[in-house]
């Protein structure tokens, strides 16, 4: 009896220990990989045609997705906020809420989530397939480093284009919110824009841009890492794609919190009165 009760906690401790060790190994490996990609990025940029092709895949092909998502999020935000605002006779301030929320939080996070879902998982699957079909080996044999040739263009494309995708998401979200607020709930057009203008400043735009830059970098590094570490077979490729999205999304939310807190501190340090 006593031996049974002694082995149960020991088993739990073993399992927790193993899990922690595995998590540390993955985080360590991811950090080393990120270091390799960043080093390769600063030492030499990829060829222009390779970068442009990757930018097209990452950016141009994602625009319709973020436009639709942004539009509906803005519309949903207006619908949900209207009831609360209407009870307090603050209907005219919907523009302020929608613009501020989208620029600071929802725009970057949504663009990041869409990029992680559409591009990140595709990247992981593509790189994983390349790995298991010996295309990485072929690159090395032909004098190209896989990290430099495959990961660097993807990192640059994500970092360069996600701020632009965020702007598209913001614009479509505000448009969607404006449509619902003015056409459905009768908020005056000038009141919507006047309050939006009063609340939103350059700092909000900068906040969105900084966040999206970090999100883009995180998505690219995580997706490439999963692809580079893909295990054999169709199951391995599927797992790499799923893990790329799940880990990227979790990291986006964690980064959003951390960057939001840091940027707030910086804001109040620079402009203590406001």
């Amino acid at each position, binding site marked *: 009896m006593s031996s049974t009760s002694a082995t149960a906690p020991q088993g739990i401790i073993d399992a927790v220990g193993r899990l922690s060790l595995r998590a540390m190994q993955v985080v360590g490996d991811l950090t080393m990989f990120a270091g390799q990609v960043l080093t390769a990025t600063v030492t030499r940029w990829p060829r222009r045609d390779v970068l442009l092709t990757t930018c097209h895949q990452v950016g141009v092909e994602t625009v319709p997705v973020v436009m639709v998502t942004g539009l509906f999020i803005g519309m949903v935000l207006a619908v949900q906020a209207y009831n609360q605002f209407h009870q307090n006779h603050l209907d005219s301030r919907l523009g302020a809420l929608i613009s501020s929320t989208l620029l600071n939080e929802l725009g970057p996070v949504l663009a990041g989530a869409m990029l992680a879902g559409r591009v990140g998982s595709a990247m992981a699957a593509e790189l994983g397939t390349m790995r298991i079909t*010996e*295309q990485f080996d072929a690159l*090395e044999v*032909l004098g190209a480093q896989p990290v430099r040739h495959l990961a660097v263009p993807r990192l640059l494309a994500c970092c360069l284009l996600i701020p632009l995708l965020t702007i598209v998401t913001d614009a479509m979200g505000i448009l969607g919110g404006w449509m619902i607020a003015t056409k459905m709930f009768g908020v005056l057009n000038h009141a919507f824009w006047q309050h939006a203008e009063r609340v939103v400043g350059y700092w909000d735009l900068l906040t969105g841009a900084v966040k999206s830059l970090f999100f883009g970098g995180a998505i690219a590094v995580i997706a490439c890492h999963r692809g580079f570490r893909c295990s054999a077979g169709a199951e391995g490729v599927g797992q790499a794609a799923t893990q790329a999205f799940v880990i990227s999304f979790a990291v986006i939310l964690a980064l959003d919190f951390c960057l939001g807190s840091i940027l707030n501190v910086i804001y109040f340090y620079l402009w203590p009165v406001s």
Partner: protein
Amino acid sequence: MDDLPFLEIHRVSQWFDSHEVLRDVSLHVKRGETLAIIGESGCGKSVTLKLLIGLLSPTVGEVRLQGRSLETLSPRELARARLRFGFLFQGAALFDSLTVADNVAFGLRQNTRLLEGEIQNIVRDRLHEVGLPPSICGKKPAELSGGQRKRVGLARALALTPEIMLYDEPTTGLDPIMTDVINELILQTRAQRPVTSIIVTHEMTTVRKVAERVVMLGPVAHLRPEEPQIVFDNTPEAAFSSEDQRVHQFVHGQACERLRELAG
């Protein structure tokens, strides 16, 4: 200097986690020689090829190119040394996102300062050499048959005029006619340029047709502790007439007791 083996594996053992694939293997290849490595699936043939080109580092022992250990080379030197090799991968390993022409041109664009026109000429020449028409240039690898993929892979491997050609199961999965086409191409490659060739294969027709020397690896799991992993090293003719049971069974494709051994 000429007495030195051109390419040498010296007392190499290879482990992947707790799985031993190669045990104390030593092997040398002379310049211009055509060597076939045969053996059962999983006995470490493809691993041997990847060790030779530095894609894997041996757990124990060393691989030497003209007397110099690959382990002592810097990453830049190793990358340069690899350009002396051409590698035909088992599945051709063509880059899916690139066209046939871009696949063949890849190494040239990566490692030379040739003008685009010159690169296109070399691409056409190499494709012609492996019997493919210029009309194939714009196709993606997914649009090609198995035989075409292998030949594009060969054209890509030959684009940088390698001194050493490594073939990883070049005829696996091909019909008998395409198998013979690939065998002819290996012979043609050797006739047209001074190239050292190492061919990993299961196909005894390929061994008989193209190899000058045959090495057979035994699976580590079936070896006694002191037994060498290279169970045969001689000419193809000697392999076909070998009285060693393992060589005889492999060469003539006789299962004998293997099914029971594998099951048990």
